[in-house]
């Protein structure tokens, strides 16, 4: 993720420089940057890295947090990111059900306590086969059954392959929940308990925040992070590198630490998709639990039997 880190640094530094430039050249009150006009130097200096790689020093008072990328419009969110086809690969050999993915996802999307967009299933394919952990979330199918049945286009498929929900349009009929064979969709049965700051935000399909009462929610593949050139929260939260996210057109997937050629990975490790026979064509691949990093220990079951 070196390239991404650079681009973020660049972005920060440009923002800062632009702010400085505005502060320096304007004698009149600048309508675009009221803050810079009223700043009085504090005398405390901080070192920063400029775009050219030089270390520069500026007064701390001129530092100002760069706002997050502005939210894209509903139209843009429905279109998706051009020239991308997002894909996720799960390496089952690496999962020991730490559920860090789940807690990061729940935290970042402010999901109602008890509900999860990512579920980690203890699976056993047949009586004598070895059990394994299977993290599951929205498959972002290319033939999404949920999108087919939605009567109001509240859940939709984008050009980059992501399936999203417009909670401002959803009528809460829950047909999509019945249609999804992967049981991935959750419903906001009551008013979500959100901090006022979050609850007052305008809803964005790309962040799926804030969740709204009487509407459906599910994994969104974090397209807001993709726009920033960053990985979905579950991917970066997993300490074992189970989740590999990437772009099928670039033919690469990464968990942040390692990057693979997607087609090779799927070929060499015999990747597969869930319920292929249903014809839903998921964008979500699994690598079989071969050559495992961890033994399978189902502590939940032990605790339950105690």
């Amino acid at each position: 993720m070196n390239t991404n880190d650079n681009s973020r640094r660049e972005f920060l530094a440009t923002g800062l420089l632009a702010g400085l430039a505005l502060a320096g050249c304007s004698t009149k009150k600048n309508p675009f940057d009221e803050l810079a006009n009223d700043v009085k130097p504090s005398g405390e200096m901080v070192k920063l890295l400029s775009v050219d790689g030089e270390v520069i020093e500026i007064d701390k008072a001129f530092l100002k947090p760069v706002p997050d990328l502005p939210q894209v419009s509903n139209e843009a969110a429905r279109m998706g990111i051009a020239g991308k086809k997002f894909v996720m690969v799960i390496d089952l050999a690496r999962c020991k059900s730490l559920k860090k993915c789940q807690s990061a996802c729940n935290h970042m999307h402010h999901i109602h306590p008890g509900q999860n967009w990512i579920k980690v299933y203890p699976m056993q394919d047949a009586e004598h086969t070895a059990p394994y952990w299977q993290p599951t979330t929205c498959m972002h199918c290319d033939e999404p059954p949920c999108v087919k049945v939605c009567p109001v286009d509240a859940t939709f498929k984008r050009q980059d392959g992501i399936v999203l929900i417009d909670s401002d349009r959803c009528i809460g009929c829950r047909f999509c929940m019945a249609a999804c064979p992967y049981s991935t969709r959750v419903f906001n049965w009551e008013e979500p308990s959100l901090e006022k700051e979050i609850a007052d935000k305008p809803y964005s399909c790309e962040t799926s925040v804030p969740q709204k009462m009487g509407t459906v929610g599910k994994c969104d593949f974090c397209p807001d992070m993709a726009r920033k050139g960053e990985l979905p929260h579950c991917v970066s939260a997993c300490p074992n590198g189970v989740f590999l996210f990437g772009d099928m057109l670039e033919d690469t997937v990464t968990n942040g630490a390692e990057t693979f050629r997607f087609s090779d990975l799927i070929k060499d490790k015999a990747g597969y998709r869930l319920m292929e026979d249903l014809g839903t064509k998921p964008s979500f691949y699994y690598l079989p639990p071969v050559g495992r990093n961890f033994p399978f220990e189902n502590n939940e079951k032990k605790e339950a039997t105690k």
Partner: protein
Amino acid sequence: MEQLAKQKIIQDLLPQKFGKQGKIWVAGLIVLCIIGVVAYIRQLSKGLVVTGMRDYVSWGIYISNFVFFVAISLVGSLITAVLRLTNVHWSTPLTRIAEIIAVSAITFASLIIIVDMGRPERFYNLFLHGRLQSPIIWDVIVITTYFFISILLLYFPLLPDLKIMLEVKKGFSKGMLKFYSYLGSFWKHTPGQIKLSEKAIGILAVTIIPVAFSIHTVTSWLFATTYRPGWDSTNFGAYFISGAFLVGAGGVVVAMYVFRSHYNLKEYITYDHFDKMGKVLVMLALLYLYFNVNEFLVPAFKMKKPEEEHLRGLFTGEFAPIFWFAITTSMLVPILILITKKGRRPFPAFIAGVLVVIGSWFKRYIIVTPTLLHPFLPMQDVPANYKHYFPTWEEWAIAIGSLAGALLVITIFARIFPIIPIQETITEKEEHEKALS
């Protein structure tokens, strides 16, 4: 002589004021409706969290109640259209009963589906952003069409009766007469009008059959277009329609008995009607049984893995008591009662009708809920109460309130309008006498 007979028919069939029993009945229904409304207000303010539904069982008794209402409404088309077009005359006195059941049931089907919505205030999105590939949009289209055709099929045959009541005048309040003349003062019963009306009814009777088939087929597709075991079936359309005709005919038999005994209509709804409707019920129950055999025994023979858990749950597991109760009360017992000549007398036929209706309500529950508790992936990472479903008092109150509301509409209709078509009865009698002489 003829004039006298006509006067008697009119006097017998005019709407009657509620007696003491009638008043208690209406009051009871109103109370149930109010409790339902109170429960719905609670649901509106707190959200669907007041129901027993959760992420796995995301459709509960609201949806099974909706399917029940759509099913029972199909009887309008059976009695008024199918029997009419096949030149069956004995069903004439039953047409209005069937049609008001249809109108009232389809109205409450629409209401209960709005109750089930998470965001009912966004209902307009169906028109603003409706997408034609969704079976819900098909349902909205066909149910609306069915509603309007049913209203017209109720209204056109009512016109001559409105004229009769406007002529009688006696016993009607001023407000009611005003209402009648608002509805039908233009009807002069001229040969031209009669011809036009008959033509219109003929066209409607033909149109309502495909529309009626559509409403229930589309309703079955809400389930059959998904992948879930128990719903993923090509049998579903026919299975639903046969079940719908059964419950509707059962409902008509119940209504026949109640109107007959309370409005003293023994000369108009005769033993012969119960005998014939009893035979119709037996035939429909056998038909529905046939589709049930197809629906359950074929997958049970194969026991595919995803189906297995679902079927075992129905046959011997968690849902076995309701499953067998529904099969027995909606089909087996009514067949046993109605197959004998004695069983087709009014009272036993009434009991059989009641069993059919109750059994069918639970049958709809069995179709909707157990499937949702048997998803492809195991139920995981959810609170314990997500893995079971039992309706809360709010759900019961709303469901019962909607049933009471449907009965209230039928009751009030019978208070305002003659429940047996007067003019048609007179015409039939005249034609009958003409044929005899």
